[in-house]
């Protein structure tokens, strides 16, 4: 699909993401100005505070954004998933340039001018309002400009905590190896940053020239007017975006890969068909959907029993699917007041893949067969597989594997890396559509290392009680999706780049 064609098909969604992005940046910068400028003023009055506060703001800015989001998620009130967490992080990032420039701007006012102001009998407030702030305004606006450009960039990471914005396209594009998505997200973000830089640059130049030369009050009035217009437009956008998401019946989440979003979309459409209003919070990173369901920010998300068993309940992997399912169902009910639905009918386990040609040449069938070649092979694993309890450490120990090199990379990139000889073995999803199309071969887990990963929905008990149609939909989905079907659906989206909503709509229609 050409980029132009992609834009024609997706412009409505792209505009929505741009709006989300702008609203996030706007609110964050507004809050940062409201906090940062008075803080800066305070620091010019209390020299002793200056070092510690600026130091703190400095440290804040060196924390990588993804890590900062990670710190914030478990916190009460300001944490969790969604725009709130993203805003807190964005404000923290924006504070430093604004505080620093406020301090620099005010301290940079000619000492003789300040002294004259005091000697004329101005109060401290009058010196600040009539002399220091007007003379420092150019420098302060420069700080706001820098903060805004940084915020436009950092907001792309906000998609990782479900806050929306252009990062949604960027992350999705990375996962699906789709350059159109990547380009649309990254290009729009870059253009937004340039536009913000340019327009605030105009404001800055206006202020500087006003103070340097002639134009007096009338320019200041125009400037106040321009700022007021921006505030009104921003406020309206904010109000609209908040009123859009008013109280849905059910909030559905998903993890950040195609199949999870697909399973979430299936439930969403089936509920909507029954008149239940739905809010979608798809593509959340790590264990975020789990946390969100437990804390009540989400009602439901798709999960795999093996993941619950090892990554969330911290049990040692076992191989009996029934035992895993029963244990998970019981512990979830006891610990979290959360119900586990009937299995959907397919498993998505880790599939250890090698190139088909290689498997035929070396006559490889099982992982044990491959162990003797590991010393010459490079392995490519996703971040998830490297870190989880049922992932790489146990896997390599069970089979006694010592690879020549282990590369940690984005899961979605491992397929293409394997087929293009960049690596020789990967750990993928067994339901991945590209296994067949790229001629990759799945080695059998002959020592039964990987626990069973039956697909299920995790749903809050109080949500089931509140919306009875939810139970009806989950009952209909029990054992309704076979491994072949899910591979096909995944391939429609990842391989044929089709719209997930459309793919799901067709599937539901077919199933009746």
């Amino acid at each position, binding site marked *: 699909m050409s980029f132009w064609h992609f834009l024609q098909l997706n412009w409505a969604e792209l505009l929505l993401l741009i709006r989300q992005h702008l609203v996030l940046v706007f609110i964050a910068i507004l809050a940062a100005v409201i906090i940062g400028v008075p803080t800066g003023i305070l620091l010019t009055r209390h020299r002793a505070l200056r070092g510690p506060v600026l130091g703190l703001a400095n440290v804040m800015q060196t924390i990588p954004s993804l890590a900062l989001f990670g710190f914030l998620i478990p916190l009460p009130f300001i944490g969790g998933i969604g725009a709130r967490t993203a805003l807190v992080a964005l404000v923290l990032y924006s504070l430093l340039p604004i505080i620093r420039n406020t301090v620099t701007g005010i301290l940079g006012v000619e000492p003789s001018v300040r002294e004259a102001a005091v000697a*004329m009998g101005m109060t401290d407030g*009058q010196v600040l309002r009539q002399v220091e702030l007007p003379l420092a305004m150019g420098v302060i606006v420069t700080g706001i400009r820098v903060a805004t450009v940084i915020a436009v960039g950092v907001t792309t990471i906000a998609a990782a905590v479900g806050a929306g914005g252009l990062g949604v396209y960027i992350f999705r594009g990375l996962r699906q190896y789709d350059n159109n998505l990547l380009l649309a997200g990254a290009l729009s973000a870059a253009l937004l940053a340039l536009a913000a830089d340019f327009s605030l640059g105009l404001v800055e130049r206006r202020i500087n020239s006003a103070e340097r030369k002639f134009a007096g009050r009338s320019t200041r009035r125009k400037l106040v007017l321009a700022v007021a217009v921006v505030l009104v437009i921003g406020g309206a956008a904010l109000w609209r975006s908040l009123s859009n998401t008013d109280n849905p019946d059910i909030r559905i989440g998903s993890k950040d890969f195609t199949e999870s979003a697909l399973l979430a979309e299936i439930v969403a459409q089936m509920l909507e068909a029954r008149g239940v209003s739905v809010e979608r919070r798809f593509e959340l990173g790590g264990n975020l959907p789990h946390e969100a369901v437990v804390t009540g920010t989400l009602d439901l998300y798709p999960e795999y029993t093996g993941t619950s068993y090892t990554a969330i309940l911290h049990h040692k992997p076992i191989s009996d699917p029934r035992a895993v399912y029963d244990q998970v169902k019981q512990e979830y009910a006891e610990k979290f007041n959360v119900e586990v639905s009937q299995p959907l009918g397919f498993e998505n386990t880790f599939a250890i893949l090698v190139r088909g040609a290689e498997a035929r040449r070396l006559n490889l069938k099982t992982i044990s067969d491959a162990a003797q070649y590991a010393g010459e092979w490079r392995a490519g694993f996703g971040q998830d597989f490297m870190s989880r309890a049922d992932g790489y450490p146990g896997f390599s120990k069970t089979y006694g594997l010592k690879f020549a090199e282990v590369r940690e990379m984005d899961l979605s990139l491992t397929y293409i890396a394997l087929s293009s000889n960049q690596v020789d073995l990967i750990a993928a999803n067994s339901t991945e559509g590209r296994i067949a199309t790229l001629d990759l071969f799945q080695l059998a887990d002959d020592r039964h290392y990987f626990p069973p990963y039956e697909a299920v929905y995790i749903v809050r008990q109080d949500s089931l009680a509140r919306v009875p149609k939810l139970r009806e939909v989950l009952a209909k989905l029990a054992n309704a999706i076979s491994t072949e079907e899910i591979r096909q659906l995944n391939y429609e989206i990842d391989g044929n780049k089709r719209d997930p909503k459309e793919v799901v709509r067709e599937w539901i229609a077919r199933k009746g």
Partner: protein
Amino acid sequence: MNDAGNNQLVQFHNVNFSLPTAAAPIISELNLSVAQGETLVLLGESGCGKTTTLKLVNRLLVPTGGEVVVEGKSTTAWDPIALRRRIGYVIQEGGLFPHFTIARNVGLVPSLLGWDEARKRERVRELLDLVGLDPEQFAERYPRELSGGQRQRAGVARALAADPPLLLLDEPFGALDPLTRASLQREFAELSQRLGKTAILVTHDVREALILATRIGLMHNGRLLLLEPPDRFLTSNNPQARAYLDTLAVAEQAGENG
């Protein structure tokens, strides 16, 4: 007008001033009175404490020992804002606000005092006329668009705006070329005499001191060495005073020979 009963507008009683960071005091045991209508010139090289003395009067600084009395009341007993609004202050280059027009600069203290617009506008016109700046031409200009001498005139106008009984001037003519300086000095002497203002002026220029002063206070290392009217200063035997007068003599000699 004050309880001292002898028309002393400003009095220094055993004033000391030192900074916690510096070992040597900046002002030591300063005793001094300024009478109503007089122009006291503090003369001395840079670092002698003359500017500090000035700042002690309008409470930009507070003495670390002794007291400064203005209109019969110690500066520490004054509300600093009220005190400063009764004292005109002129610094080198005028200390004008670069983002205010000349009119707004000159009308600053009246604005702070809450005068109505019409009265303020009238006062600004009057003052600009008084200091020799055409209001039509200069009122709406910014300080940057004026020459040094014009800025200095605007600075004096600003200090006079609310008709304060006392003026403090810190090397007001220091940054001007000699010709402009000479004419401004003349005009100022005439003006302060006509308005009957009391003034304390700081300078390192002995010629300026002799032109403007009713009394000259010679300062050195934070101490007042000498306090005399100009005619007595000219005949003083104090070595510091002689050193200043010698520079004058050299200049005149050079002038005669040339």
